[in-house]
């Protein structure tokens, strides 16, 4: 077992497993699991409103995690970090609340056909509520939105652009900085779905100059049930709250209420402090590994997987031919074999991959495949995992062919 797998109890437990579904969710290192358990063993209480030591510890744990997240993504201020359950909820908050603030009839929202359903359906709903128009960007053959494509689709009516930084199928990372500049020049506010990007690349929201950035903890070594919405203070201040209830108010009377300051305005009810602690530990973990190592390993393993698979004439791979640009995400099909059969037969060979539409049905249709297999790599994977994937691919093909 390689030294990195050794950090993960599940890898120690299933020594033969090639876990290649990291884009769906990552595994969790001891550091993260222990940090959460320790929180419950030594610091647990309801945070924020408590006037005793334990509650203060819980508050510190909660707010220190927020501070760490702010620094991790380069946010200017702590109060720009809002805790959510997952990227989906973050994106829903933007779609509800920002739309309520900005959209009028016939305004336009711009998204790409590559979006995950979680960055698509909320905008469909917002468009419906406000009688706005949902307009689509289409990627080039490498999975990139070109400057021209963006310029063509932007109009005076385009109030919001919401774009994934890294497609969960094609693995291509958008040239966000440039795209955002162009959108801003058009007075279009930009929301970024960073769910797939943040596990693979150092993010700096101020350098990107995005107005919103959403991601999930569980794809970056943190527990499930914790996510983040970053938003520029000036917008978050103006936006109406989304969920309402305890902890997000100042004054309440029977018929009306005033809301708390940021970030609390967007955090209704008792929050997931254990999850925040886990996310903070996951950041520590990633920093202890280092993005250099993460990027190097994922790029090399992704290239290896892509190149080996593309040698097989019956395999089609989607996206860029330069597999080092895939961030370890390799979507493919084996000719004549349904991805569900491939995934099941991979499983019987201890290779865990995903088969289906990957929550991106419109993209699948755009790629004219409806379904595909996806192997997604994390830095803790190794050549042995990829070799298993390749060998199993060959086996499955011959197994189906042999039956002919």
């Amino acid at each position, binding site marked *: 077992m390689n030294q990195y797998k050794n950090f993960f109890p599940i890898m120690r437990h299933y020594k033969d497993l090639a876990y290649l579904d990291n884009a769906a969710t990552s595994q969790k290192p001891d550091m993260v699991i222990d940090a959460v358990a320790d929180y419950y063993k030594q610091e647990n209480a309801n945070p924020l409103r408590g006037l005793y030591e334990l509650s203060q510890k819980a508050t510190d744990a909660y707010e220190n995690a927020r501070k760490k997240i702010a620094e991790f993504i380069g946010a200017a201020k702590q109060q720009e970090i809002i805790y959510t359950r997952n990227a989906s909820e973050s994106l829903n908050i933007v779609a509800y609340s920002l739309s309520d603030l900005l959209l009028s009839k016939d305004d336009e929202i711009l998204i790409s056909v590559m979006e995950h359903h979680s960055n698509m359906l909320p905008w469909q709903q917002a468009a419906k509520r406000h009688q706005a128009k949902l307009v689509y960007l289409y990627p080039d053959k490498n999975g990139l939105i070109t400057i021209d494509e963006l310029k063509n689709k932007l109009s005076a009516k385009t109030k919001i652009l919401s774009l994934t930084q890294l497609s969960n199928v094609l693995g291509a990372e958008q040239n966000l900085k440039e795209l955002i500049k162009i959108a801003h020049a058009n007075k279009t506010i930009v929301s970024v779905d960073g769910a797939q990007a943040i596990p693979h690349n150092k993010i700096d929201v101020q350098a990107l100059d995005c107005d919103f950035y959403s991601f999930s903890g569980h794809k970056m070594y943190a527990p499930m049930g914790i996510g983040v919405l970053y938003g520029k203070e000036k917008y978050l201040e103006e936006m109406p709250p989304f969920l309402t209830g305890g902890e997000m108010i100042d004054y309440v009377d029977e018929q009306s209420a005033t809301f708390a300051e940021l970030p609390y305005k967007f955090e209704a009810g008792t929050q997931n402090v254990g999850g925040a602690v886990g996310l903070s530990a996951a950041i520590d973990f990633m920093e202890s590994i280092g993005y250099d190592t993460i990027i190097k390993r994922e790029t090399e393993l992704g290239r290896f997987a892509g190149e080996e698979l593309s040698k097989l004439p019956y395999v089609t791979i989607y996206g860029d031919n330069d597999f080092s640009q895939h961030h370890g995400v390799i979507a493919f099909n084996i000719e004549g*074999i*349904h991805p*569900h*059969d491939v995934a*099941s*037969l991979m*499983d*019987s060979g201890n290779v865990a991959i995903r088969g*289906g*539409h990957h929550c991106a049905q419109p993209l699948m249709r755009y790629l004219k495949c*409806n*379904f595909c297999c996806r192997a997604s790599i994390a830095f803790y994977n190794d050549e042995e995992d990829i070799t298993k994937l390749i060998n199993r691919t060959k086996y499955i093909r011959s*197994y*189906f062919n042999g*039956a*002919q």
Partner: protein
Amino acid sequence: MALNNIYNEILMEHNTHPDHKHKLSVSSDCKTAINPNCGDEVLVKKGINPSCGDEIVLELNIEDDIIKDAAFNGQGCAISQASTDIMADLIIGKKIDEAVELTDLFIKMVRGEEKDEEKLEQLDEAMALKDIAHMPARVKCAVLAWHTLNEMLKEKKTAE
């Protein structure tokens, strides 16, 4: 997990060489259609598994309460394709009520609710799909055709 026993010979054979993957009628997206060869009325129904996109169109030729012929078309994984073909084999020549019972039994089997081997014998080759009960994510693939048939026959009954 030893999943290969799902992708067993029977299943692979029916997937690669289905006996009943063809058309009985001309058009095939409406409830009844005419078989151009014999002028018979053919019952048609489409079944869809949204999670994997499998789509089958099932066609039946029923005379005097007996399923005289069955055929299917559509796209899907090996499990749903084979399962459909196996089902067609099983129900051709059966009475409607018998076929309904068999589909009920099959659905119970793949859900792990019926384990009595003797009873299951009635399912003949369809028993090859028994172990799918251990792969809940694939159960929908296996039952798609059987569900569709079940509904089709019940609709016919109530229509009468």
